[in-house]
C-alpha cells in the first residue's frame, strides 16, 4: 500500500512539513528529510524549486530562488534522493510547478519518483481536467497519489469532483492566499473548516497555508486530518540552518 494511504489510516492528527530542496544549502535536502523523520513528523513535502512560484508567498519564493542559485535542478534532486528509502520510511511527496515536470517528461518524471520511492505529487498548476484527460493513467501506473487543492472559494460541486478524482488526501488551503500570507485563523476560516467537515468527503483533508505554531496547528486539525507547515519551517531553516529541526517540531506538537 502507498505509504500516504497507510499513514492516513493512523488514528492521529498528521503533521506534514514542506521544505524547498537545496535550501539553505544545496546538499541539505537529504539531511533535512532525515531530521524531520527523526523529529517525528508524519509526512514530508519536498519542494522542487521553480523560477516563478506564483502560488507561493515571499518566504518560499526566496528559498526557491536561493535553491536555484545553489544549483538545484530536477535531475539533481532525483540524484540526491535516489537512496533516500535506505534511511527514511515516512511518506514523501514532491511538490512543485508543472513546467519543470513537463520539460522532464511527465512519464519519465513519474518513473523516477516511483524508482526513488516518492509516494505522491502536488502540482498546484496542473488542473483537474488536464490531469484526468492526460496524466492520471501515468500517475496510477507509477503508484503516485495526486494531491489536489481546495480553497474557501471552491464550490461544493467542484470539491466533490476533486474528491472523486483524489485517492489519498485533499490539500485544503486554509484561506485564499499565497503561502505564509496570513497569521492565525478567524471566524471565516472556522466556518470553512466546519463546512468542509460536513461534506463527508471520501478523502481526508490536510490543511495548508497559515500554519506556523502549536495554536494554528491545533485549530487547523480540529476538524481536518492534519496540517502542513511550510513558510514557518523555511523561516526556521533560514535562521537556524538544519541543526535545530527537532526543536522546531517540538514547538508544534
Amino acid at each position, binding site marked *: 500500500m502507498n505509504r500516504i494511504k497507510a499513514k492516513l489510516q493512523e488514528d492521529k492528527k498528521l503533521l506534514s512539513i514542506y521544505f524547498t530542496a537545496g535550501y539553505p544549502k544545496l546538499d541539505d535536502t537529504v539531511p533535512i528529510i532525515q531530521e524531520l523523520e527523526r523529529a517525528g513528523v508524519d509526512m514530508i513535502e519536498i519542494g522542487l524549486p521553480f523560477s*516563478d512560484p506564483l502560488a507561493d*508567498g515571499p518566504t518560499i519564493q526566496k528559498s526557491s530562488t536561493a535553491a536555484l542559485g545553489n544549483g538545484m*535542478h530536477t*535531475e539533481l534532486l532525483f540524484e540526491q534522493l535516489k537512496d533516500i528509502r535506505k534511511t527514511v520510511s515516512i511518506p514523501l511527496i514532491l511538490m512543485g510547478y508543472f513546467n519543470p*515536470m513537463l*520539460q*522532464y517528461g511527465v512519464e519519465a518524471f513519474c518513473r523516477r519518483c516511483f524508482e526513488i520511492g516518492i509516494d505522491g505529487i502536488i502540482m498546484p498548476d496542473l488542473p483537474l481536467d488536464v490531469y484526468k484527460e492526460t496524466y492520471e493513467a501515468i500517475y496510477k501506473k507509477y503508484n503516485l497519489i495526486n494531491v489536489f*487543492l*481546495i480553497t474557501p472559494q471552491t464550490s461544493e460541486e467542484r470539491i466533490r469532483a476533486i474528491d472523486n478524482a483524489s485517492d489519498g488526501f485533499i490539500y485544503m488551503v486554509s484561506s*485564499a492566499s499565497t503561502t505564509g500570507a496570513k497569521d492565525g485563523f478567524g471566524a471565516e476560516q472556522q466556518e470553512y473548516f466546519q463546512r468542509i467537515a460536513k461534506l463527508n468527503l471520501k478523502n481526508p483533508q490536510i490543511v495548508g497555508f497559515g500554519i506556523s505554531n502549536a495554536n494554528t496547528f491545533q485549530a487547523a486539525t480540529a476538524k481536518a486530518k492534519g496540517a502542513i507547515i511550510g513558510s514557518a519551517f523555511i523561516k526556521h531553516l533560514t535562521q537556524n540552518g538544519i541543526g535545530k529541526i527537532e526543536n522546531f517540531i517540538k514547538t508544534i506538537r
Partner: protein
Amino acid sequence: MSYHANEKGYYGEFGGAFIPEMLYPNCEELRQNYIRIMSEPSFQEEFHQLLKDYVGRPTPLYFAERLSEKYQTKIYLKREDLCHTGAHKVNNTIGQILMAKKLGKNRIIAETGAGQHGVATATVCALMGIECVVYMGEIDIERQAPNVARMKMLGAEVRAAKSGSRTLKDATNEAIRDWINNPVNTHYIIGSVVGPHPYPDMVARFQSVISEEIKWQLQEKEGKENPNYVVACVGGGSNAAGAYYHYLDTPEVGIIAVEAAGKGVNSGESAATSALGKVGIIHGSKTLLMQTEDGQITEPYSISAGLDYPGVGPMHAHLYKSGRGEFISITDDEAMTAGLEMSQLEGIIPAIETSHAFAIFDYKKFEKDDVIVINLSGRGDKDLQTYIDYFRL
C-alpha cells in the same frame, strides 16, 4: 481550420488554464460569463461609446508616403499611438473595466512592463472611480519613469516587483499572487493575450477592434479589405492579436510577427520567444517560452520594456508552430535605428516596442504594389530618455 481559440481556450496545442486552484473560481467566473457579457447590447454600447468618445477611435489608417517611397511598397500605419494614453493597451482596459463592473468587482490589479498597460489600467480605474494597484518590475520602474508618474497622477498605487529579473514576468507573478490573496472583490486586468483561458481570447476580442477598423478603412482607401501583410510587434502579443484578428482565417493576408532579439538572438540577452522558446507553461498558459532545459523560466532581455517577456500568447505560439505567421527577430540596435528613421521620415516617434516592427525591411522584401499595414502600437514619449541616451541627441 481556425486560428481562433476553441471553447476550452486552446489554439492548437497552446493555451488552456494551468492555474492553481486558488485562481479557479475567478477564472471560471470569467470563463463562464465573458462571451455572454461581451455580447450584451448594453455592454457593446458602452464599450463602443467609450472607445469613440474617450479613447478616440477609430484611430486613423495613415498612408505613410515617405516611408513607402523609401521601401518601394505601400505602407499604411494603423495609428494606435493616437489612442488616449498613447497605445493600444487602453482598448483592452476599457473592455475589462466594464467586465469587472458587470462582475461586481470593486478593486483592480494589473501588471505592467513598459507602463502602458499600467497607465491604461489606472486611467480606466480613475474613470470609473475604482481602486487600482499596479505591479511593475523594479527595473521597469526605473526605465519607464514617465509612466510611473502618470499612474500616480491617476491615483493608482504602483508596487515594485523585486524578485527574479524584476521586469514584466515578475510583475505578473506578483499580480497573480495578489489575486490569489484577494479572490472575491478583485479583478485582474491582464495586459496582453497571455495568462490562463479566457484571458487570451478575451483580450484578443477587445483588441480586435483594430483589425475591424483596418478592414473598412482599407476598403475606403484601397478598394479592398485585405492587405497583403499585417505587421505587428509581439511582446505578449495583444496589439498583434488585435491587428491580425479578422485576418486570421484569411490565408491570403500574410501575418508578420516581430519579436525582440535584444542584443542578438543567440547573445543570451534576448526576448525572441519563437526562436528560442520551447513549449511550456507560463502564467497559466501553455505556450512557447524561453526556459532552461530544466524548465526554469529564463530572464529575458530587450531594450524595450514592453517586449521584455519570456513568453508569447498561445495564439502566437500557434501561428508560429503552424506556419501561419512569419516571425522576424529584431535587435535593439535595429529597432532604435528604425525608430529614429520613422521619427524623421514621418514625424511620428514610435514606442520602442513598435520600432521593432519598422525594422523588418532588411529581412523581408515586398513588391511595389503590396499593401502592408503596420500596427503602430504606441507612441514613443515614454521612451524619450532611452532614445536620447542611445543616440546621444
